[in-house]
């Protein structure tokens, strides 16, 4: 199959890009692994200001917009497992085949982010799942993952999904902290984890908001967090237990409980241990951008902690270091769906200019960049308190790459 543009990923960013490209009259292939378009929007449902953010509804609007353009071909339930240069632009290998290869003059990579797992003793037992899987089960398929669960790992995703689980009538023993050791330390020290929650924004998620700004001081944060009651602090109905760490999953055939421990005041050593009955455990280490297609295509990438991981170095039009290969959405930094949609629009405008041989002068991207910034400010969730710094860093890397031979 030959098209002008291949869009990889039909989440908020990919759908937004495909809609703009369809409107511009291009022949587009829109590829996604999942049978239903919408990506992670499908599971999102939470209260936002006085409204309900309904991701499914948002996805439907984006899908309807794409469907009116008949030059957009939908290739669902297919994975892209290779991406390489071809004489006409790029060749994408698809599995399952038919078509097995898509040739495109330009590519928009909108592959989103993936979840970070937290290893726990017995985490291979049935009933342990990634928090995102619990969200998909509950919000997309209407199946409760269990009767009473626990979320291990505190980050914006944990809070959003815990709220959804409660709304669906599932009971939770709260959000507890992830363990670590000198050899494996996926989400950082307890204080690293605390800092991430203190930076949480969104719908007044932090009842200690008045205390929030003092919590940027290490000693205040450490004092308050380590002295929180063992049962936790209620945050919009979800109990955050900042000084309780999960040490093991309990059960033989399947999950029957969780082993917890309380952390002593200053030194992060275990003070006491006990078990609580649960029938499912959600591990939640946060989200990381998916860099595999960038790395395969030899795109220049960088590790940017504020953007949650390894991201491509991109121009203000979203073009990577490989000409004709553009990147949008969570694949260039974990942010909310509103930002991803705005990035999808920008990427589509960049591709349009590229294919029409128009200037990709970065000053011309300013109106679209401004819309992304607005979306960032309006977003219900900020996945990292210093996202602006990450964006600046990436921009500096791009400018630096212009100077490089």
């Amino acid at each position, binding site marked *: 199959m030959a098209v002008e543009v291949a869009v990889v990923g039909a989440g908020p960013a990919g759908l937004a890009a495909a809609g703009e490209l369809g409107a511009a009259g291009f022949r587009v292939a829109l590829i996604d692994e999942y049978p239903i378009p919408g990506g992670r929007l499908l599971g999102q449902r939470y209260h936002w200001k006085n409204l309900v953010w309904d991701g499914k509804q948002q996805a439907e609007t984006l899908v309807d917009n794409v469907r009116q353009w008949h030059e957009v071909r939908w290739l669902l339930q297919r994975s892209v497992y290779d991406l390489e240069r071809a004489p006409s632009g790029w060749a994408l290998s698809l599995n399952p085949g038919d078509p097995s290869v898509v040739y495109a003059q330009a590519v928009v990579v909108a592959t989103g982010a993936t979840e970070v797992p937290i290893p726990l003793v017995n985490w291979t037992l049935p009933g342990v799942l990634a928090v995102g899987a619990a969200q998909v089960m509950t919000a997309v398929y209407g199946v409760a993952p269990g009767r009473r669960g626990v979320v291990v790992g505190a980050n914006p995703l944990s809070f959003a999904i815990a709220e959804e689980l409660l709304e669906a009538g599932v009971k939770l023993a709260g959000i507890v902290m992830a363990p670590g050791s000198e050899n*494996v330390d996926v989400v950082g020290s307890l204080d690293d984890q605390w800092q991430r929650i203190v930076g949480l924004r969104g719908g007044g998620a932090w009842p200690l908001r008045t205390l929030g700004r003092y919590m940027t001081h290490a000693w205040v944060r450490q004092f308050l967090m380590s002295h929180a009651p063992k049962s936790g602090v209620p945050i919009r109905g979800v109990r955050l237990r900042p000084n309780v760490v999960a040490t093991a999953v309990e059960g033989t055939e399947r999950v029957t409980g969780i082993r917890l421990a309380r952390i002593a005041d200053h030194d992060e050593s275990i003070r006491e241990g006990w078990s609580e009955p649960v029938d499912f455990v959600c591990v939640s280490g946060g989200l990381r951008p998916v860099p595999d297609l960038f790395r395969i295509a030899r795109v220049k*990438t960088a590790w940017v902690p504020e953007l949650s991981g390894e991201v491509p170095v991109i121009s203000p039009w979203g073009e990577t270091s490989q000409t004709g290969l553009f990147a949008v959405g969570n694949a260039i930094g974990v942010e909310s769906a509103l930002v991803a949609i705005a990035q999808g629009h920008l990427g589509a405008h960049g591709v349009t200019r590229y294919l029409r041989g128009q200037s990709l002068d970065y000053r011309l991207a300013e109106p679209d960049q401004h819309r992304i910034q607005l979306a960032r400010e309006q977003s219900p969730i900020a996945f990292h308190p210093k996202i602006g710094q990450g964006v600046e860093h990436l921009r500096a890397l791009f400018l630096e790459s212009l100077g490089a031979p």
Partner: protein
Amino acid sequence: MPTHNDEVILCRCEGITLGQVRAAVQQLQPTSLRELKLVTRLGMGMCQGRVCRPIIQSVGQAMFQDRSETRLAYQIPTRPVSFGDFVKADDDYE
């Protein structure tokens, strides 16, 4: 922080525990994350790191003072592919 028990599984596909990793490091003395992978099969199972990569990177950082989070390579195919589709793709390739 509470120390992870030796029995905690780091690589689910290959069933590699933290204890096995610690023992391999002690006995075989790999000098890099790549060598540790080759002696233990850590991250080399069915998922090809799609689940465990962050865990394995964190082991690399802790055990080999490897500050590069992006050290491990990505290989094609980036997703599992049947041989039939592989052959078909080859036929379709221009």
